[in-house]
């Protein structure tokens, strides 16, 4: 464990704890509307209430769950599609590789926002649509990275040697390629976790995220704008938690890279 990794995990831990606790306990129920309309923060409601009289702390806690779920699922989708696509392109012949590379360039040129708009329009706004859109958008970047990494490994002499000695392609993939590219990939996936959480918040902010009763920090932030003078904390709390989560994921990714490649520690 290095210091960067420790800080990253320290930032992530409270969010994970918040999300975990919300599974078993929240100050009020998410549908409890007895708190009074737009109550300012106080002893009964630490962050105040929303228009319907729901406790904001409760909503923020459940929002942590949404953020983590989105992040993890989107990264899973991205990993599944991206790594498979990248491997295929890496192993493909020159023509197929050119086509795939061009397709990836186009996909990457398509802003994630537009992909999200398309997916949301196709399958109606929901947490699933959000996760799918973000996962797809990120998978293109991951596929390009995987392709480059695979090419790098395949150019090594030992691959040529093991090919010459009759090793089958599947064995080369599992025995040489995947173990070699995994460290770089895992770092990238951790980075993508942060990006996915940010993307989900942005989509929810734009009104393209999961609708109620799902709860997202992005939408809480949008709604906080209406109460910013009575309870600025409702604007600050979800934003800070979001920043902690993303910074935590980023630092953990950096820490992983340092751990995987001790040489970096000497020069940087």
């Amino acid at each position, binding site marked *: 464990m290095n210091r960067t990794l420790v800080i990253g995990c320290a930032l992530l831990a409270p969010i994970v704890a918040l999300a975990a606790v919300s599974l078993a306990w929240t100050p009020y129920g998410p549908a409890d509307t007895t708190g009074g309309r737009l109550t300012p923060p106080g002893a009964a409601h630490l962050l105040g209430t929303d228009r319907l009289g729901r406790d904001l702390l409760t909503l923020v806690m459940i929002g942590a769950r949404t953020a983590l779920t989105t992040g993890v699922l989107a990264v899973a989708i991205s990993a599944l599609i991206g790594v498979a696509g990248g491997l295929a392109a890496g192993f493909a012949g020159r023509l197929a590789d050119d086509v795939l590379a061009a397709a990836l360039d186009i996909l*990457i040129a398509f802003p994630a926002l537009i992909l999200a708009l398309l997916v949301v329009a196709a399958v109606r706004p929901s947490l699933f649509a959000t996760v799918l859109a973000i996962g797809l958008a990120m998978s293109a970047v991951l596929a390009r990275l995987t392709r480059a990494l695979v090419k790098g490994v395949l150019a090594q002499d030992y691959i040529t040697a093991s090919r010459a000695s009759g090793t089958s392609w599947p064995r080369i993939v599992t025995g040489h390629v995947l173990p070699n590219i995994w460290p770089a990939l895992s770092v990238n996936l951790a980075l993508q976790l942060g990006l996915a959480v940010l993307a989900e918040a942005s989509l929810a902010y*734009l009104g393209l995220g999961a609708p109620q009763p799902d709860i997202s920090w992005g939408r809480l932030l949008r709604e906080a704008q209406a109460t910013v003078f009575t309870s600025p904390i409702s604007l600050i709390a979800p*934003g800070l938690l979001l*920043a*902690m989560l993303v910074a935590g994921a*980023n630092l953990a990714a950096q820490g992983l890279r340092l751990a995987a490649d001790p040489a970096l520690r000497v020069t940087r």
Partner: protein
Amino acid sequence: MLAYLARRTLLLAASLLVASAVLFVLLRLLPGDAATTLLSLDADAGQVAAVRRELGVDRPIPGQFAIWLDHLARLDFGRSFVSRAPVGEEIAARLDVTIPLTLMAFALAVVIAIPAGVRTAARGRSWVLAALTQLGLAVPVFWVGMLLMNVFALRLRWLPAGGFPPDGWADPMAALACLALPVLTVALVMSAVLVRYVHSATLDVLDSGYLRTARALGASFPAAMWRHGLRNAAAPVVPILGIELATTFVGAVVVEDVFALPGLGGLLVRAFERHDYPVIQGVLALSTFAVLAAGFLADLLQRLLDPRLRRSIAGSP
């Protein structure tokens, strides 16, 4: 070099065509159409059918695509289903906001990031800067916008909270005032990303033999850095700038929403809500082109900066 240019351009054109064809089909497979946007709940079934016929969305998709391509070949993006104004006109009006916003934010980000990145690389790690960079990478851009707006527009009343002057750039100062907070918002977040790249590129240069040689020959550090370092450091950073310019654009889209600016982002989101296909196609064709072109230019610039790559262009088939 010419062959390289021709190949890249051809690839760019082919990519755009494929992208727009895919999008065209996808859009038309989505549920719903513009008829529901144009009609109210009191409309009868005959009106719905008439509107669909008028918009041409009742025809088979290949036929619709052929018509669209035919118009595009004459640089005609068609007319909006909803406003009935030419799509080109709709987009041009929005570019008045989005292009200055993107470019100014990008420029400001570069201005912040280069000195900050070079300085931390040269003088060793600064905890404050590292923390700020991490923060910049971790906060959502719309949140920064909301915070800046609440402080500078709503509480201090120094700048407008949003909107754009009705006469656009006729009064440049008023227009710039409206863009000041959005530009700052995007630039702050963007610079955090750039600082990291500048930082590591500078470190690579500092480690290099030629810089040490230059210092040994008596050049001062800033002089050596200026003559040899920056250029070498720039080579790997430039293509990243190309990608980041595209990211800035997306950031601008979200920030436009925070500050109620009439930019491309709002146009696109609204067009999706309303099934206004010609507008969606137009905006996407333009933005995809812009992103691909930015990547292309960055690539070109990088080759100009790095003679080794230039040789490889000449040698490439």
